[in-house]
C-alpha cells in the first residue's frame, strides 16, 4: 500500500542537485520558450521591419558571447566533477573562472546595450527591440543571478550544492544558445 508513495519521490531524487532548482529551470524554459514563440509570431506580421531592425545588432559580439558562455558552462561542469572528487581548491578555481567568463559576457552585453542607446534605440522603437530588450535583458539578469549563485556554491562544501548551481548555469547557457540564433541570426 505504501509502495506507490515511495515511487514518486524516488524519480525526483534521481535528478542531480536540488529538486526545486529543476522546478525553476522548467519554469524559466517555459517563459523563454513562450517569449521566443511570441517573437517569431510577431515577426510574421512584419518581416521587413524585423529584418531592418535586426541589422542594427552586433552579430560578432553575440557570437563571441556564445563562445564565452559555453566555455563558462564547461568550466562549471568540470567544477562539479572536482567537487564530487572532493578537490575543493580545484572546484573553487574552476567556479571562479566560470564566474569571470559570466562577467565578460555581461561586459560585452553592456557594450552592445550602450551602442544601441547611442543610436537612440529603445524598447519602444520597434516591436523587434521590445523583444530584444525583454529577452536578452531578462537573460542578462539571470547571468547576474547565476554569478551570485556560483559564488555561493563555491563557498559551500556540499557537492550537491555545486550540482545545483551548475544546473542553473547550464540553463542560462542553454537559453542563450536558443536566443542567439533566433534573435541575431535567423532572417
Amino acid at each position, binding site marked *: *500500500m505504501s509502495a*506507490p*508513495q515511495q515511487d*514518486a*519521490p524516488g524519480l*525526483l531524487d534521481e535528478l542531480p542537485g536540488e*529538486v*526545486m532548482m529543476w*522546478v*525553476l529551470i522548467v*519554469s524559466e524554459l*517555459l*517563459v523563454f520558450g*513562450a*517569449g521566443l514563440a*511570441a517573437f517569431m509570431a510577431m515577426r510574421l506580421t512584419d518581416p521587413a521591419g524585423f529584418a531592418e531592425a535586426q541589422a542594427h545588432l552586433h552579430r560578432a559580439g553575440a557570437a563571441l558571447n556564445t563562445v564565452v558562455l559555453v566555455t563558462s558552462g564547461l568550466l562549471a561542469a568540470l567544477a562539479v566533477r572536482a567537487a564530487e572528487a572532493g578537490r575543493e581548491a580545484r572546484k573553487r578555481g574552476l567556479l571562479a573562472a566560470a564566474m569571470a567568463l559570466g562577467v565578460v559576457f555581461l561586459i560585452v552585453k553592456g557594450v552592445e546595450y550602450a551602442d544601441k542607446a547611442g543610436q537612440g534605440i529603445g*524598447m*519602444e522603437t520597434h516591436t523587434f527591440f*521590445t*523583444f530584444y*530588450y*525583454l529577452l536578452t535583458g531578462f537573460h542578462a539578469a539571470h547571468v547576474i543571478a547565476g554569478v551570485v549563485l556560483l559564488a555561493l556554491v563555491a563557498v559551500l562544501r556540499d557537492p550537491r550544492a555545486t550540482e545545483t548551481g551548475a544546473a542553473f548555469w547550464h540553463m542560462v547557457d542553454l537559453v542563450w544558445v536558443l536566443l542567439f540564433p533566433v534573435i541575431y541570426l535567423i532572417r
Partner: protein
Amino acid sequence: MKYQTQKIALAYFAVALALFAVQVTIGLVMGFVYVVPTFLSDLVPFNILRMLHSNSLIVWLLLGFFGAAYYLLPEESEREIHSQNLAWLQLGILVLGTLGVVVTYLFNIFEGNFLLGKEGREFLEQPKWVKAGIVVAALIFLYNVSMTVLAGRKTAITNILLLGLWGLALLFLFAFYNPSNLALDKMYWWYVVHLWVEGTWELVMASILAFLMLKLTGVDREVVEKWLYVIVAAALFSGILGTGHHYYWIGTPGYWQWIGSIFSSLEVIPFFAMMAFAFVMVWKGRRDHPNKAALLWALGCATLAFFGAGVWGFLHTLHGVNYYTHGTQITAAHGHLAFYGAYVCLNLAIITYAMPHLLGRDPYNQVLNMASFWLMSSGVVFMTFVLTFAGTVQTHLQRVMGEEFMFVQDQLALFYWMRLGAGVAVVLGALLFVYAVFVPRREVISQEPTVAAE
C-alpha cells in the same frame, strides 16, 4: 481540540460567516439592479453596492484566514497562541473598522475629510482611519502568530502560512499611497489587489489546503511538504510578474503586454498543481476521515480554483484577447468563480473541518453541509457560464460591432435574469451552510437506549 486558544477561531469564523451572508445578499440585490436598474438607485447607488459587495468579501475572507491561522497554528507549532487578549483586540478593531466603512459608504458622512471621509477610489476605498486600524490589527496579528510559531515547532505549513500573512500585511501598505494621477493610482493598487490574490493569498491557500490534506487523508507530512514547496515556487514565479496583465491599457509601457501575457499564462500552473495535489493526496491517503463534508469542500476548492482562477483567468489574460474583453462580463465571470473556488471554498473547508473540533463534537450535519456545497457551487458555476456567454455577446456587439454600451446591456437582459436565478441559489446555499455549521442537532448520547431517537 488540543489547545484552548484554538477557540479564538470560533469568534473569527462567526464574524466571517455573518459578513459572508451580508456579502451574498448584497450580491443578490445587485443582481436585481441589473434587471431592474431603478431599484434602490436613489437610496444606494450601484457603485456603493459594488463596494460593499467586494469589500465585505475581502474582509470576511481575511477574517476566515485569521481564524484559520488561530486554529491551525497551535496544532502545528504545538503551542498555545501567544496572547488570547491580543487576538480579541484584533477582532474588535477589525469589526469596528468594518462598521465604520459600511456607515461611511452608505451615508457618506465626512465627505472630503482627510481622515474620516471616502477617498473616491474604485478599489482600496476605506477612510484613512480604517486603513490605519487595519494596519494596527495586522501588526497585532503578526506579532501574535509569529511569537507562537517562533516559540514552537516550525513546519513547512507554518512557514508558508507566515510568509503569506506577512506579505499580505506588508503589501497592504501600498493602500496608503493615493496619487492624484489615476494611472499611477491604478498601477500601485495592483500591488495590493493582484499581489494579494495571485501571490500571498495563494501561499495562505496552499498552506491551509496542505493542513487539511494532512489531517483528512493521513498522508505523510514529508510528501505534503514537497508538494507545498513546488506549488509555492510556481505561484510566486508566475504571480509576481503576472501583475503585468493589469498594465495593458492603463498608460504603462507596451512591454508590459508581453511580460503580463507570458507570466500570467503560467499562473494556471500553481492552480493545476494544487488540484493535482489534493486529488493525489486523497488517492494515496489511507485515512477514512469522518468529516466527509470538509473533504468535499477541500476538493471542490482545488477544482473550482483551477477552473475559476486558472482556466477562466487564462481565457482573457493574453493581451490580444483582453484588448476586446477588458471590463466586459467575461471579467465578472472570472472574478466570481475564481474568488469562490480559491478563497470562499477554502474558508468554508477549514470552517467545516474545524467547527466540530471547536465545539467538541463528532462531525455533524454532514448531509446538509454537503448539500450546501452542491447548491452554492452549482449556483456559482451556472452564474459563471451565464456571464461568460453574456460577456462573449457583449464583446462582439460592443467591442467588435461598436454598438453603444447601454444598447448592448439591453440585449443581455436574458443573461442577467438567469444570473439573478443563480444568485438566489448561492444565497440559499450560503444560508444553508451557516445553518449546517452553527446549528448542530442536539447530541444523542445514548446512555438509555430507549430515548436514543427523539
